[in-house]
């Protein structure tokens, strides 16, 4: 090898001596030109503008931005909030009037439970209120570790991770796993926090019709064909299905066993959002996996917020350590945000204690849901959207007037009628310009274990009256 190289070198030197002068001069000039090009400043095309300084100043003078925010009309439906004086418990004081609460997601009635309050107070006396730091920098308290442990044991998974805000839970979890180039199949009725998580992940999003497994299978088959065309890319593209256990927008449950079948057939991972079904469905309140008897290890990630049944603040994700541990370094809402205040974590632990001690509470809740569902049937002009065992139903206008504003006003008058007669209801709120598949305007009716039969009958009767009065 070396001798061959040496031989080439000798030849080169010989050629150098034998070359004519003009050749050498030309080569020299070319080399100098290359050196000059390498060291000269690159020019950007954008800056090649032919504007003089004076013209630039004129443009700067003339430019007028839009106002920072467009004006909001005084009677915008979402501007004037209903003011709740005092605790948002079963008997709630709205706009000065005491009402029965059919609007807060207090499914298990734990918002004003004495035991929960006592534990929160004890925690306040020990730790103060705030944590003054994110989890990585002295913001991890022993209460957080205990809560994560208890949640993992309750859900029978390996590990759980807590977030300090319910909305941020699934919105941080999805982008931690799904990146640019990955594919996510989502139900059309997914809630807003899932949509924001998907937007932050920059993956390809494919929507399938609500609860329509055939549509999902069609999409999966299409993807399979795509994969066969480009197997190398397919080997590194992760796929996920994101569904909710109980949908907050439509009140029905996802067909989990079919989803698990599709998972193994097409090799997609499932992320399940259980905010509405945690503490509601299942014999022990473990959610939709217990409801259908599906093995919890078949679901890759379960995410829920602790602001509904658990009546605290925050959210959690649970699953196998292989999956959950990743979020401790890549979940943005976990790493870059202060941790959950310890008193809220202590309240959540006590709520879990109550849930574990008394599994009867879930059966009672489901009974009440059925009761409410039945009582609200047959109201002229309004139809009930949601399954019989869902604790958060929607009442939709049977015949829409065609304009969302008018429908909204009609429903608001029904709500107002009920508020004046001491039943607290609320309109389901959406951001009209931001939702991908905007649900129609509805009234939200929430069932809690604390509601008695008379109260349910009274509420149903009032809604019927209101509907008859308003929808004449």
């Amino acid at each position, binding site marked *: 090898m070396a001798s061959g190289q040496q031989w080439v070198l000798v030849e080169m030197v010989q050629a150098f001596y034998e070359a004519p002068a003009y050749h050498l001069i030309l080569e020299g000039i070319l080399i100098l030109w290359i050196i000059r090009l390498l060291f000269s400043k690159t020019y950007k095309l*954008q800056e090649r503008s032919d*504007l003089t300084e004076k013209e630039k100043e004129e*443009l*700067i003078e003339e430019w007028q*931005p839009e106002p920072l*925010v467009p004006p909001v009309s005084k009677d915008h439906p*979402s501007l004037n*909030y209903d*003011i*709740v004086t005092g*605790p*948002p*418990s079963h008997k709630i004081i709205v706009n000065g009037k005491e009402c029965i609460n059919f*609007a*807060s*997601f207090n499914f298990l009635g734990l*918002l004003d439970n004495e035991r*929960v309050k006592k534990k929160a107070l004890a925690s*306040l*006396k*020990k*730790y*103060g*209120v*705030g944590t*003054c*730091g994110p989890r*990585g920098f*002295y*913001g*991890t*308290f*022993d209460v957080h570790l205990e809560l994560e442990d208890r949640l993992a044991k309750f859900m029978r998974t390996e590990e759980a991770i807590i977030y300090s*805000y319910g*909305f*941020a839970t699934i919105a941080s979890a999805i982008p931690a*796993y799904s990146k640019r180039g990955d594919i996510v199949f989502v139900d059309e009725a997914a809630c*807003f926090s899932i949509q*924001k998580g998907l937007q*932050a992940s920059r993956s390809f999003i494919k929507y399938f019709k609500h609860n329509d497994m055939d549509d999902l299978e069609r999409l999966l088959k299409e993807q399979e064909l795509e994969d066969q065309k480009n197997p190398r890319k397919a080997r590194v593209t992760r796929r996920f299905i994101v569904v909710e256990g109980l949908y907050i927008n439509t009140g029905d449950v996802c067909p989990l066993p079919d989803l698990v079948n599709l998972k193994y057939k097409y*090799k997609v991972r499932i992320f399940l959002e259980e905010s509405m079904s945690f503490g509601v469905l299942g014999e022990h309140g473990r959610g939709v996996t217990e409801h259908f008897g599906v093995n919890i*290890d078949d679901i890759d990630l379960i995410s829920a917020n602790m*602001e509904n049944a658990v*009546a*605290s*603040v925050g959210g959690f994700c649970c699953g196998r350590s292989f999956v959950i541990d*990743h979020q401790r*370094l890549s979940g*943005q*809402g976990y790493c870059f*945000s*202060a941790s959950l205040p310890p*008193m*809220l974590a202590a309240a959540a632990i006590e709520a879990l204690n109550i849930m574990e001690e008394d599994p009867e509470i879930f059966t009672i809740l489901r009974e009440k849901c059925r009761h409410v569902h039945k009582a609200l049937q047959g109201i002229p002009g309004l139809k009930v959207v949601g399954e019989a065992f869902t604790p958060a139903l929607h009442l939709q206008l049977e015949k829409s007037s065609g304009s969302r504003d008018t429908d909204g006003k009609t429903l608001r008058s029904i709500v107002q009628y009920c508020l004046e007669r001491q039943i607290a209801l*609320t*309109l389901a*709120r*959406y*951001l009209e310009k931001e939702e991908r598949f905007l649900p129609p305007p509805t009234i*939200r009716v929430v069932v809690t274990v604390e509601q008695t039969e008379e109260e349910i009958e009274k509420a149903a009767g009032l809604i019927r009256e209101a509907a008859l009065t308003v929808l004449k």
Partner: protein
Amino acid sequence: MTVWLTDVSVFSTEALQASCNGVAYNRPFIESFEETPMLVAVLTYMGYGILTIFGYLRDFLRDWKIEKCHIAREREEQKEFVPLYQDFENFYTRNLYMRIRDSWNRPICSVPGPKMDLVERVSHDYNWTFEHTGKVVKDVINLGSYNYLGFAENSGPCAEAAAEVTEKYGVGVASTRQEMGNLDKHEELEQLVARFLGVESAMVFGMGFATNSMNIPALTGKGCLILSDELNHTSLVLGARLSGSTIRVFKHNNMQSLEKLLRDAIVHGQPRTHRPWKKILIVVEGIYSMEGSIVRLPEVIALKKRYKAYLYLDEAHSIGALGPRGGGVLDYFGLDPRDVDIMMGTFTKSFGAAGGYIGGRKELIDYLRTQSHSAAYATSMSPPIAQQIIASMKCIMGEDGTTIGRERLRQLAENTAYFRRRLREDGFIIYGNNDSPVIPVMLYMPAKIGAFGREMLKRNIGVVVVGFPATPIIESRARFCVSAAHTREMLDTALSVLSEVGDLLQVKYSQHRTQPPMYRAFHDTSYEDADN
């Protein structure tokens, strides 16, 4: 090995005023970011190189089962699935982070006040798993928690007020602001915040991170331009990305870079179509928590007025910590709150609670009440937390009838000045503005990150160390947060221990130590004493 100090007004304040684009500052603006010594930089790169080589070696051994593998594995049934993580994504985590993982996520079991109790934990397998021994390390001096005014306490008027509210209201809210979650406590808090900041109206949210990521998309959209500082927090970056606007980044705290971007944006318009931009939003922070620098607000406001842009100021670390009345950067510079379009901040740091706020003109807040993602979809703030903020804010403003607030503000400023001066005299390289209570001390080398954290803990001081990816790869640092609750003795103890550990680990890199006053030659006027 020249040292480059930006805008250090060591000669006279007039020199500074002349150099800042003609904008007068009402006080000396002294910031320094001493350049990395060449030898240290080379050694740091070498250190990372060696760690990478060992990383590959260990991965190889783990693959071939020669070394025991502690990493969690995928399920048997899902082995055929596309792998959830790419191997190279986690290389840094497996091989560098794991070695010094015990410096982070240290569990505490007391109030995160000036002294705290840590849960003792040990690892028998080199940080792969931790065990709690059951013992508690008591009275560790806390230099890591964001407790600037010392409101992290479990007794006293704020805690009592919060306890009362817990009794009355409970802990949860279970509904959104627009539905049934708008309590009278929220209204009270919002009016108080507006008064504190000096703005027309304010709105509060349950999480500081979410305040940014959910409200910037409501304010800007496609066709708008966001000019964001290089070192902005993740929440601001996420909010800007979710909004769909074009984002352009200017060099950290560099007004020439910002002005150039503004001029180019207005003159050339949107890329390719050259249509004019709908809005231009400048996003800056009050105090940058990794650098300890304070934003040059008078200049930013001058630029914003000249070019008709809007200003979004994130005062997460500066509200309550700067300024004679605790009003943040605006108070510190003596500026008018009406000049800033959107004032955002969090309650986690100086108020000992949780959550965030946005303050501004009434039209802005009304618009956010209807269009903010948080108002429509996220649960509102918990009542005892709101009460803690109300109580602490009243205390800072002096409305509770005591002078505790004023005392604490003064104590914080004094502690900051003292701590910074002593650190500089000892010979550490510290970054940032002289008045910022966030003090990064440079460590540079990866091994020193772990060693520093552990040595300080052995001597009963809890510190925060940060490395890649939160900082540039060779600029690892330890970050101290001074609190008004730290007494002079605590600071002195901490400083003597720091000096000891600094000598042990050789982190006193500064090449120009200011001599303490008594050693200075009497004719030497080239260094002005920082605290007059």
